[in-house]
């Protein structure tokens, strides 16, 4: 048996070595990808140009969004003469990662704030922010969100803020009027209490940083300092905010969407498992499934430090491997123009990222003005590399906030953030 084993190992090893060497040869042929550190500087005039068709990959929130983007891109295609194809990803993060690793990413794609750092770092992205014709039209805070390493990487495609959505029917049923719309934490708590009856909880929202962070902002706290260099998770303000949420989770006037059997706040709101919810612009599209519910959008109440909310945005990422980056730039300018963004907003809800569209949007959407007003005091989510993992961990701990210790949770988040930010 021993001879057998030795022969086996030898033969297997030999086979393996031969194959690996062959593949190395193939590998060299494939590695005409640019040096990772090189193309990240995004100097103007270095965009590729060709006649190749473009692939646009989006992470769609539903049929409305997919159709809207497809229509827009088709219109541009007809105009510019460059073919473009829109692909709605089933799992955008996974497909992007695979595309980059395989060297065949889509030319243009949705890029979220937490993915920017990672892809910018490994050279997958082409920075083009400074090349945009309309770059001064974007909101300052959005540009900051997509600036990494002092380079403005990609054009913000839209944004949303969180505000308070109230079920008008249940509101009047509880005997509340417009004067009762809460403007402080205490008022919010008392209103939630009045609205908690039977199967309905007063305020239902997702049990994650992306919602609870609004309370943290209202208390004056944030996870990472505005310039992104210091971790501030364990501030007293944050502890106060989590304490407030915990108190009302315990007395049953607040609840997490998952705990009432809904997938997210919007579903809980639509099924009237919650009388109020904290959500962003996208809720308008989702509530189409629940036509009997009448939503009223108002600004979130002010906390101890005043008004605060969170702001979410995605940008149009451009692949460094794209053979026709000039075409992509053209497409992006078209898609981020005021008229096009207003059309998108009408189709599936988010707010235009360009200031020139603000007034028109307010006129078109008088019921949703609160969302746009929120941009004045909204906080962005942390964009440092690795911060997304910390937030995932934070969310995992927030899941048991009801029985947990806010200080301990925030301390652990602080530790994790320091490893990432410092």
């Amino acid at each position, binding site marked *: 048996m021993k001879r057998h084993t030795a022969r086996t190992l030898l033969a297997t090893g030999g086979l393996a070595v031969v194959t690996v060497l062959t593949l190395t040869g193939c590998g060299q042929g494939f*590695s005409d990808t640019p040096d990772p550190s090189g193309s990240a500087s995004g100097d103007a005039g270095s965009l590729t140009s060709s006649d190749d068709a473009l692939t646009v990959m989006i992470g769609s929130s539903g049929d409305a969004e997919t159709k809207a983007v497809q229509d827009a891109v088709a219109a541009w295609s007809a105009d510019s003469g460059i073919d473009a194809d829109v692909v709605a990803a089933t799992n955008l*993060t996974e497909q992007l990662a695979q595309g980059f690793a395989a*060297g065949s990413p889509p030319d243009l794609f949705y890029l979220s704030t937490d993915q920017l750092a990672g892809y910018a770092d490994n050279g997958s992205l082409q920075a083009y922010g400074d090349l945009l014709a309309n770059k001064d039209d974007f909101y300052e805070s959005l540009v900051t969100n997509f600036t990494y390493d002092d380079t403005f990487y990609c054009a913000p495609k839209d944004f949303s803020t969180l505000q308070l959505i109230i079920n008008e029917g249940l509101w009047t049923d509880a005997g509340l009027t417009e004067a009762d719309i809460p403007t402080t934490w205490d008022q919010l708590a008392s209103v939630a209490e009045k609205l908690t009856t039977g199967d309905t909880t007063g305020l239902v929202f997702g049990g994650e940083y992306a919602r609870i962070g609004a309370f943290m902002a209202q208390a004056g706290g944030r996870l990472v300092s505005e310039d992104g260099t210091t971790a501030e998770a364990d501030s007293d303000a944050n502890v106060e905010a989590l304490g407030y949420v915990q108190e009302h989770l315990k007395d049953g006037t607040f609840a997490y969407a998952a705990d009432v059997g809904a997938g997210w706040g919007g579903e809980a709101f639509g099924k009237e498992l919650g009388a109020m919810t904290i959500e962003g612009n996208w809720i308008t599209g989702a509530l189409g499934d629940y036509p009997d519910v009448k939503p009223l959008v108002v600004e979130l109440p002010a906390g101890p430090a005043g008004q605060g909310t969170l702001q979410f945005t995605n940008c149009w990422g451009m692949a460094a491997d794209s053979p026709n980056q000039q075409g992509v730039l053209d497409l992006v300018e078209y898609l981020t123009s005021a008229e096009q963004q207003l059309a998108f907003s009408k189709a599936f809800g988010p707010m235009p990222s360009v200031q020139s569209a603000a007034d028109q949007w307010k006129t078109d959407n008088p019921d949703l003005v609160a969302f746009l007003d929120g941009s004045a005091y909204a906080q962005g989510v942390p964009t440092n590399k690795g911060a997304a*993992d910390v937030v995932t961990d934070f969310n995992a701990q927030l899941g048991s906030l009801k029985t947990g210790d806010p200080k301990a949770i925030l301390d652990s988040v602080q530790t994790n953030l320091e490893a990432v930010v410092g």
Partner: protein
Amino acid sequence: MTAPATPAATPTRPVSARPSRSGGTRRGEAGAGWLFVSPVILILGTFLLVPVLMALWVSFSDWSGRGSPLSSNVNFVGLDNYASITSGGLATRDFGTALRNNAWYVLLVVPLQTALSLFLAVLVSRRMLRARGFFRTAFYFPSVTSSVAITVLWLFLFSFAGPVNALIAWFGGEGPNWFREPTGLVHAALASVGITSGPDVLTQNTALGLSWWDWLAGPSVAMFALILMAVFTTSGTFMLLFIAALQNVGYELTEAAMMDGANAWQRFWRITLPQLRPTLFTVITLGLIGCWQVFDQIYTGTKGDPAKTTMTPAYLSYTSAFRDNEWGVGAAIAFILFLIIIAFTIFQRWVLRDRPVSRRRIRAYQSATYRKGAAS
């Protein structure tokens, strides 16, 4: 684990060895032989052997996800990736959590599924059973379905307003929000008798980023639902193996034991079970190997939630690479898992080995035979 896999046996010399004749009918046989096995070698080598080597390289390198991992810009970084998941920080805690979850999963699934499949096999093998085929089919059917389909079904069954909770409510209880409940079962049991936090020695000392108290938290309620699902889907496969083995158990010994007055439990434990040892070994090995690789169910269903209590090393390996772009870390996790599986298999083999009969027994047997008078 949807099909009964044959156990990995050690290679033996082929039984049908015949003296080879030169020329004549045997000419060209060597060529044909190599030709016939070449597709197998090529495909297995390329898609099973080489990937393992490539992953080994990636786990020792700093490849960031772009271009070829064998290109010249990729550097050898030694054990850095392995260090990042064992020496501290969020990555280590995630790895520790994943290991803990999977360890509890293995601890509960393997004994449960072995016992249940053996029990079902014994039930179905009873001589006086009618409609044996129907019952066998019923028990085996879940093993045929895809893990994705079963996970979707399970998500519905154990949803907050689903059939399981409705059934519990019918009996007057209140079911938990199964897939959203992150409390560990051991912690919950301890809490029900009043112990809500552990002694300092457990809470203050950590291993892989988790305190020992957290290691002992038990599977979460969500994980428990997945454990039930695993037992549901694999008990049928192993039941078949046990049925086949039971049919090989000669009836004479059992009959003799019956005549000597051994009751059913004694008969089972002392006569049947020892003869099932090889099958038991197979079932436990296959169970271990399968359980340490839980991935499909997590990917389809819970994705690590709630609160990372259904995160497993296989899924963590996948997310580290494909979501977080940490390919080296993902490969490192995969290899550590590989080592764990090998270790468990070897350990289990050692535990279940055929031990030599002890001298006391031999002596007792000999004297008994002598006393009774040796049978002719």
